[in-house]
């Protein structure tokens, strides 16, 4: 038990350090501006009034560590600062984009788990036969394709040639649930990479588990095939898959940014890209901290779950 507790403690400590590091990194990157930060941020419109306004808004005349302390203590209180461009609070930007992104992400995860495990177990059951070869080849091929290329081709086929689905979500605003047809292509594209990776992991884990001595022993006892598969073999194939599920959060984030840009969905990815284009540093920092901390927490959770499922294999820390 002490081994488990010390693992949990170490993993929690690493998670806390990662959170602090994400905050520091986000702050440091924007501090790394070459020359006068206000001039650099003014970018295409370097008129003196705007430069002065930026300097005042970001309090650039104060030392960096004071600003960091202010910003970090603001983060703890949930105050993410205000936008340089519009003067609105960053939390409002987050609230605006949160709905569509949450909808996309949760739909994707809800479909990802059954599809990934179902296809993975199916492939493992028919290992080496046509069904397995088909699933393995397709997942291997689609796994590598960038979302934007796949997305644009799907739009060309299903929206342009066949006319079955709308090409983008333009005009639907944030109320996407009322227009499910507009969600089909974005969710499909978001699913493409995580599903492939999950299927491959579940397949590999199941094949290993099904070839193991304890499964052979269970079969010798006359335990039914389905029971062997789902109550004995599958749990052992779960540990690596649980970790992969958390890693897909990274991909989901990348995917969400691309998919929202491609299908013109007003979510957090669109907010982030807009802020990057306008060099709206406080908004980018706020979003980056939220995304970064979310990734840290989900990876932490997945490592702890994986450790619970297979305590023998030490994970991460």
């Amino acid at each position, binding site marked *: 038990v002490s081994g488990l507790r010390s693992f949990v403690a170490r993993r929690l400590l690493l998670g806390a350090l990662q959170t602090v590091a994400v905050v520091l990194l986000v702050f440091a990157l924007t501090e790394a501006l070459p020359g006068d930060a206000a001039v650099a941020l003014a970018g295409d419109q370097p008129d003196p009034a705007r430069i002065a306004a930026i300097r005042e808004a970001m309090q650039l005349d104060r030392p960096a560590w004071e600003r960091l302390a202010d910003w970090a203590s603001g983060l703890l209180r949930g105050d993410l600062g205000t936008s340089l461009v519009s003067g609105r609070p960053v939390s409002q930007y987050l609230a605006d984009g949160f709905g569509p992104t949450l909808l996309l992400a949760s739909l994707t995860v809800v479909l990802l788990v059954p599809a990934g495990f179902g296809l993975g177990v199916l492939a493992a059951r028919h290992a080496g036969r046509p069904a397995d070869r088909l699933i393995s080849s397709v997942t*291997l091929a689609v796994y590598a394709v960038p979302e*934007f*290329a796949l997305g644009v081709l799907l739009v060309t086929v299903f929206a*342009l040639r066949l006319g079955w689905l709308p090409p983008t979500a333009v005009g639907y605003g944030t109320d996407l649930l009322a227009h499910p047809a507009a969600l089909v292509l974005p969710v499909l594209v978001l699913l493409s990479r995580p599903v492939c990776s999950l299927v491959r992991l579940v397949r590999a884990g199941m094949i290993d588990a099904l070839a193991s001595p304890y499964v052979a022993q269970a079969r010798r006892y006359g335990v039914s095939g389905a029971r062997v598969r789902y109550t004995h073999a599958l749990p052992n194939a779960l540990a690596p898959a649980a970790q992969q599920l958390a890693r897909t959060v990274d991909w989901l984030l990348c995917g969400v940014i691309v998919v929202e840009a491609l299908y013109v969905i007003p979510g957090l990815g669109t907010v982030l890209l807009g802020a990057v284009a306008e060099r709206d540093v406080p908004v980018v920092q706020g979003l980056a901290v939220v995304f970064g901390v979310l990734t840290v927490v989900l990876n932490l959770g997945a490592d702890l779950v994986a450790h619970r499922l297979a305590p023998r294999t030490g994970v991460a820390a």
Partner: protein
Amino acid sequence: VSAPRPLRTGRFALGLTIVAVPLVLALLGPVFAGDPGPRAASFTLGDGHWLGTDFVGRDVWRQVLHGGRPVVLTALAATALAYLVALPVGLISALTRHRLLEELLMRPLDVLLAVPSLLLILLVATVFTPGAVGLALLVALANVPDAARLVRAAATEAAARPAVEALRMQGETWWRMAVGYVGRSMLRTLAADAGTRLTGVLYLVATAAFLGVGVAPDAADWAVMVDRNRTGLFVQPWAVVVPAVLIVALTTGTNLLFDAALDEGGRRTRKETRP
């Protein structure tokens, strides 16, 4: 689950065929592209242009010939750069007897691993305007933590073998042990990882270019072409479909090719759990 040999050769040939077209276009395309003709109207078809014209009236076929090289070269450079850092860091931390040095080398990478790669790239793009070199550096940086961990895991396994102990007792140099034995014995693992890493790097380079990072807004780059010509998708789909298909072929083909080429080796050196 050993795939019979003809099957593996078949997959190898398939991967090679799929990757050949975009690769040849990327490497030799600029040689055959010729002079840029006069600009025509935007998004037109026919009129001497095989694939029509793009959003500013340039010939799409010529842009396609030019657009592969930046994607391929940036990806190759980023992969090489990532290993250039990851190999020494991983090897040193696996072979050193100073625990502090090991922690000092690996812990910062654990922390960096927590930042999603595209987020890191976008953060930097907020304050700088990175060019192609900057993009390669950024993508390499995003790949270093994972690569270093893999190198360290493979090197630790090799360094625990009796052969290394024998070399050490014979008084062989650190260099000979690290490069001559440990480095050589993990070549297969590294080759397998290089395949998946190159695929991941291609993905990241193309996606960043699509989002406008590291490229000029009117650059001849397949990913940029997909982005900029999207507005004319209903009028002139070729300007989007051709570069998109080439990117799909490039990434898919690379992945299939490496998977088939390293199938056997991957199985022999496969570790129980990947960290």
